[in-house]
């Protein structure tokens, strides 16, 4: 599975959403609430073996499927 499909299925299953677009804002469309954001972060750290610093907890990194995938790829590239 690619990052995108893994993250998508995590979001779908964890937050019970059937359908959303890659660019939909998680927070503004109500896909994920403020508690759920922390669950997403924990999932990304666990699944992709990355460490996310406080200053990286920003909408540009986390607030849509597309943003998350770009962020995870960048983190992985840094680690490699």
């Amino acid at each position, binding site marked *: 599975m690619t990052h995108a499909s893994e993250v998508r299925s995590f979001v779908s299953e964890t937050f019970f959403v059937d359908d959303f677009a890659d660019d939909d804002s998680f927070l503004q469309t*109500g896909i994920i609430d403020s508690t759920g*954001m922390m669950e997403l972060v924990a999932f990304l750290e666990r699944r992709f073996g990355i460490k996310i610093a406080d200053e990286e*907890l920003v909408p540009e990194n986390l607030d849509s499927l597309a943003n998350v995938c770009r962020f995870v790829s960048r983190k992985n590239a840094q680690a490699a």
Partner: protein
Amino acid sequence: MCGIAGFTLPRDATVDVKAEAEVHLRRMVTSLRHRGPDALDAVIQAGIALGHARLAILDPAGGAQPMRDDTTGVTVVFNGEIFNHDDLRRSLTANRSFRTRSDTEVILAAFLERGIECVSEFNGQFAFAIFDPRDLTLWLARDRFGKLPLFYSETSERFVFASEAKAILASGLVQPRLDRHAIAETLRLWAPATGRSFFDGIRSLPPGSVARLRDGDLSIHTYWELDLADERIDHGIPFNRAADELEALLYDAVRLRLRADVPVGAYLSGGLDSSLLCAIAQEQLGGGLQTYSVAFSHPRYDERGFQESVARTLGTDHRTTTIENAEVGTLLPAVVEHAESAILRTAPAPLLKLSHAVRVAGTKVVLTGEGADEMFLGYDLFKETKIRQFWARQPESRARGALFGRLYPYLAVSKQSPQLMRQFFGVGLDQPSAADFSHRIRWTNSGRISRFLSRSFVDALDGWDPVTAFLSELPSAITSARPLARAQLLEARTLLSQYLLSTQGDRMLMANSVEGRFPFLDHRIAEFAARLPDWMKLRGLREKLIVRRLAKGRVPPQVATRTKFPYRAPIAEALLGPCAPAWAKVELSRDAIDDVGVFDGTRVEKLIERLASTPAASDADEMALVAVASTQLLARRFLCEREISPLELEKVQVRAA
């Protein structure tokens, strides 16, 4: 307080029809006996059947109902209190001699002299029905805030009404079916906000309105609305004078509500409003006030320390009832039985236990602080609106959005990332004049509950959106009102009468035959609060400034200066895990949920797994769990006919007139 019930009959009803009507009426009155265990009386006459379950508080000997005027035949059934009945009686004695000291007779006299417009003169909490045989008209009326309930249903043959929907269902005249729109409204707005009950074809008469039924035509008109227009604000009033005026009004509102032929106690939450009321009541009684508090064994919800310090300072006769997590779950079936509602919170359950304690202590009436947060901007929602309004003027400002960290320091996201928090609270920031600007975040969040609905339920709704439907029924003036006034109106329309005063108020009180009285919802106080500039209510992020001024020196300083503590009760701990009540294990199973068909059993199963395994559940997930549990209980309790024993039915005294 009491329960009322009735339905129309043909004027020339045959003996058989009347006999059948008597059975319907007995069933209706019997199903309301918790509201009025002191007497169950009914009358069947040409054109109408009327029933009454009485909780005798004023003139126990003279206030029997249904009450009929012998000259005209006009008959009333009444639930509630007209607090200014003495003044009204004096103004009416010129043309009439009174037989009783009861406020019921004052309603009858005022109606005979002034017609239904008399409601505008009543200061009280009431729901009543008047049948006028002279023009064969049935009138229904409800107080300004809807403190007391009144439901009705138009069937092909009858017009039926009652204090609770269960009485209409018990009549056998209406088939019980869940109203899916009411459920959908609740999952978004927290309660049905457009007059629906949870049952198809049964509606709630809107607060502040009067209904007229004549020749089979129903017309409803509003006689009072909360007017928060900018033009009403008196910007020149000095703060000290405003505080003096509020003090005088509140003293009078308490004085009127301490009148009764039985002792009046008070609820003491430990917050600002109820503490202030207790202080004023204790002063007026010259001591001896009974105060009642609910404490939680779970410290997250508990306010015992504040309650005890107020009781000690005021020297009240104080009683505390403690509730365990597990009891909240055990009580939920009784909560749904009385509230007749799907709900998103378990907070009514502790209040059910509290009213039981009041009843056991022998008290029939309590004052409560309800309404102060709506009128004097006590809720966090108003602060949230204020921050968002301030932020919307400069959406790029980081500092403005970061204010949410001060408002909700306990939110996980606000601790860890101001940027994400701003994203969350920034919903709809580009539309500051939208009617729902203030409630956009709340309703986006509760919208998440709908994910657990079954496919068939969603299909049957056919795209119907509760928020759009609700907003379309609001007066058009609302969009031109200032944001805080808009927030207040939405709060009053979605939550005050439909949830706080009913599900969490009247129903939990009357379940144990206890009457609540609400001094802050005296309409004179509401109208006065509407005239005050917003800063006297919410200054910066400090709520209820003017109420605090009154509390200073009357209640302990730590209570007078305390920030509003939202009243909540445990959810996941009460319904799942080792404490789970037996009913929950049955009703929350996948099969039971699919059987009722409102929610999707498989999805709810996953939700339960998630809630059981996470220490920090999300608010929307917990609300979803309560929504599912209460809907299951609602369906089980009300979708089948209930047996009522013949012995119970015989307790209703039926007269023919």
